[in-house]
């Protein structure tokens, strides 16, 4: 009950940050920004540097940062704490615990293990230990199922792999999706439109492990062009990147198509045509911007999801990426791993949504002039 109340209070507090007046937002946002900088730099560079960096950061943030960014920072920090707390509660509600094993452990052994890994029996006590570790010791805690390594040592090498693979896949899906979608939108209800939408439907409905397995059989076993699986050369990246990109490409194609159809009916496009501009100029200079809007808002969360890896694709192609830790952490009830992945994912979602918002203001002059930000 108390845990529920704390949670509810946190949510209210979080909602309140949206109504915070601009001056206060500026001040609090800058302070929290300084705090985050301080915590990060303290473990990288030591206390004095961290203090200086934090103070400097606060001043810069207060003076230079757009209100939109500071509002996000003000939201981010309490939301992160709330996320950790809520995730902890949920983890403790799930049946089992990290020490439940096929072989029975005696109570003494379990107690020893719990003390060793800092996983007490109460969720709130664990939350306290975790926050202490995060803020004071600067670690995401030891993994219980991959012994001898901390969560940052697990995620650290895996994250760049996932980001590399994810950004390539994202690039592919944007290229492919926009191409298909724009062509389909321009040639609405023609054979080209139907064909590209058929491919898009295929991409949405075929799970990527099916696509991946098929690609593996064709390109590795039959033709022998690409290695089956693993990580270490450019040839290893091709198939997982394609498998990862197709579902997103399909969605982007649909968004771009409908965006294009809608934009082509707008007054400013008619004006452009009326001015006698060539059709290609109308499309590239005038219609494309509008077409991109829905795609960009999709790309924010999609980028966060793609760059944190996909369990299915990673397991299929034996890629040492980050996606596996989302699933393994949950399955093994490896609490610190669950929280570590959640924090990284949450951070990326916030970051990419911020980028999307900034991109919006850049793409649509109407949003820029009013100065309003999408909540």
């Amino acid at each position, binding site marked *: 009950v108390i845990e529920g109340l704390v949670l509810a209070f946190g949510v209210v507090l979080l909602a309140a940050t949206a109504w915070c007046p601009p001056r206060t937002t500026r001040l609090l946002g800058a302070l929290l920004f300084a705090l985050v900088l301080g915590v990060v730099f303290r473990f990288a560079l030591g206390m004095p540097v961290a203090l200086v960096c934090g103070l400097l950061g606060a001043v810069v943030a207060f003076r230079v940062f757009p209100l939109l960014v500071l509002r996000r920072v003000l939201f981010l920090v309490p939301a992160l704490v709330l996320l950790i707390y809520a995730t902890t509660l949920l983890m403790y509600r799930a049946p089992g615990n990290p020490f439940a094993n096929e072989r029975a452990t005696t109570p003494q052994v379990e107690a020893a293990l719990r003390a060793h890994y800092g996983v007490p029996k109460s969720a709130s006590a664990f939350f306290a230990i975790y926050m202490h570790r995060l803020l004071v010791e600067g670690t995401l805690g030891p993994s219980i199922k991959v012994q*001898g390594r901390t969560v940052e040592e697990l995620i650290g090498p895996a994250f760049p792999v996932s980001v590399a693979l994810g950004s390539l896949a994202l*690039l592919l899906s944007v290229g492919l999706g926009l191409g298909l979608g724009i062509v389909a939108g321009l040639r609405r209800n023609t054979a080209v439109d139907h064909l590209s939408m058929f491919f898009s439907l295929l991409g949405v409905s075929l799970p990527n492990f099916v696509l991946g397995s098929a690609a*593996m059989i064709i390109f590795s076993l039959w033709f022998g062009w690409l290695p089956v699986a693993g990580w270490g050369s450019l040839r290893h990246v091709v198939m997982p990147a394609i498998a990862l990109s197709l579902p997103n490409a399909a969605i982007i194609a649909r968004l771009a198509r409908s965006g294009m159809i809608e934009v082509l009916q707008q007054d400013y496009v008619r004006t452009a045509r009326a001015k006698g501009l060539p059709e290609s100029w109308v499309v590239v200079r005038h219609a494309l911007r509008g077409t991109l809007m829905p795609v960009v808002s999709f790309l924010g969360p999609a980028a966060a999801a793609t760059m944190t890896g996909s369990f299915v694709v990673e397991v299929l192609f034996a890629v040492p990426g980050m996606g596996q830790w989302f699933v393994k952490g949950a399955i093994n009830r490896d609490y610190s791993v669950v929280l570590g992945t959640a924090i990284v994912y949450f951070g990326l979602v916030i970051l990419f949504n911020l980028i999307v918002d900034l991109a919006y203001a850049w793409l649509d002059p109407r949003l820029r002039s009013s100065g309003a930000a999408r909540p």
Partner: protein
Amino acid sequence: MLRSLLSAFLVFALALLVVGFTLSKSTGRRADFRFSNGNEPKSLDPQLATGEPEHRILSALFEGLARLDARSLEPVPGVAESWEISADGKKYTFHLRPSARWSDGQPVTARDFCYAWRRLQEPTLGSEYAYIMHMVRYAEAYNTHAGQAAALRGTIPAAVTALLRAHAGAIPAAAVLEFSSKQNLDATLEGTPNSVLRNFLLRPAGDLPRSELSALPAQFELEGRRRAALYEEAKLHFGVDGGAYAADDHTLVVELVAPTPYFLELTSFYPLFPVPRWAIEKSGGQNWFLPNRIVSNGPFQLRQWRVGDHIRLERSDSYWGRKDVRLRDVDILPIENTTTSLNLYLTGELDWLPLQSIPQDLAPDLRSRADFSTGPAFIAYYYKINCTRKPFDDVRVRKALNLAIDREQITRDVMRLGQLPARYLVPPGIRGYTPPDTGIQFDVELARKLLTEAGFPDGRGFPKFGILYNTLESHKKVAEVLADQLRRHLHVDVAAYNQEWQSYQQSTRAMDYDLARAGWVGDYEDPNTFLDLWLTNGGNNRTGWGSVVYDRLLSAAADVEGFVAQPEFVLDHAHDGPALRRMTDAARAAAEPAQRLKSMSELRLALLAQAERILIHDEFPIVPIYVYVTQDMVKPEIRGFYNELLGSDGAKRPNLRGIHPLRDVWSQRDPYRESGSR
């Protein structure tokens, strides 16, 4: 605008790709031997690790007193170049070879073993395999008695008080049972000489008079004090001058509580491997087994470990037998997807696929290939019955379930790899073990008759029940066939359902199931590894079933000499009393030590067979289904894999546990042709 957006993105992506590759740049040359290990090892700390993937790596990195010879899987000299066993089989003297070295050049001494074994029993370390060495004097007391003493003098008396307060009259049987299992009384009081407590443990289920319960705390206190004293004694002596101790740098003396025929084999098992104290203490005991920190004494050294990518081992230059090690390096890949493993094998990227790395739905088709081999395994697949639930508390119902199942259909049509239908719990193939009579067969008539006797003629009135399995495709197939057979043969209403691993663990532990799938991999080649699961309230039992005679038979087998001195209870109650009595008398009469040891060991196996008989002939707390098969796919140019073992006695036996020591594996591949890319 679009162009600038794209180019920015491209630069970003390329930069990150480069980062990704520098981090996972390959080690260059293809290793001499590459295999799929199914999973990332949880730990490479010999005293903390558990599991098959860990076993394969640790046996290559470290070496125990004995090691298993690849051809026979019998213990042969490892770090110890010779040993003597006392006439009573209770004292082992190991002579360590002076040439044995750690990878940092230090000699491997008897003290390293003392340290490792004491560490294994350290109560605060929490090793899951500590129990495996409890036959060594002082080990069990050091490992468990401090915690038990604390419970006996703290939480258990408190629970008694609470129980007395909660109930006005006699304590109901259910509350007593809950108290016993929650306080883990059987484990906590195991082997107590206190007659009051022994009688309490052995009393039949039923209401407990208040007076009897309120008398217990005083006895708990006494027992707690006794255990605390034993712990203190063990702490003082174990690994120092008792149990296992260094007579000098190269002589290790081990004292056993009772003769244990499999002890030599056990010294080749990874929990008993020596560990380097200085390296562990230097890194605070946390991550000493990671590359660049680890100091090991086996045929290979850990060169690289990229989580999720690969582990690379290299031949150790400091290993005493390095001339026999022919692989220069080994790559171990933690590939979880079995289809991916198979594809890697087929394209020549892997040389060996062990059991868990072969896709089971393709295995029957792979069977005809020359490089695929199967053989019986030391793994049992069975279902547990919740004996605390009605109507499964009725032995007739449990027997009916056992008789109504056509195991042949499951092995023939579902598993399709030559798995043996199981009419026993203990898989066949153990030297010297004769399985008892079994009541398990396929007999629908008898099953229906038993069900009628139990009050469910033609299945009428039988409550709907569930068959629980942990989520996995092959378990699902078996569970569905099982449910179908029970429906057709017994006309009962049954459904199969699944839970993911942790929930399944929770459900079986909390006894929240009717029938639950289970499997057990034998830890050592002895029936005991399958039979001690079913001790009353044992941690792995989880059926609620228990039998005093069964427990006594197992403790008699664990201490045959003690049994021979006082055999009456067991002989009176065991089924085959007269035959056992003859063996007991023969063992007692044997004067010559070797003869005595031999008849003791025969008697021991006979006692275990009697215990198994209770499970599969009288009481049926489980439904054995089949015996697993080992499966391997090995490239023809890889040598040193033996699926048929040749014992030192000239007898041929199957490789039950699928063990292939990497030390003795070699590759006939031309090293110069296969250079270059990985």
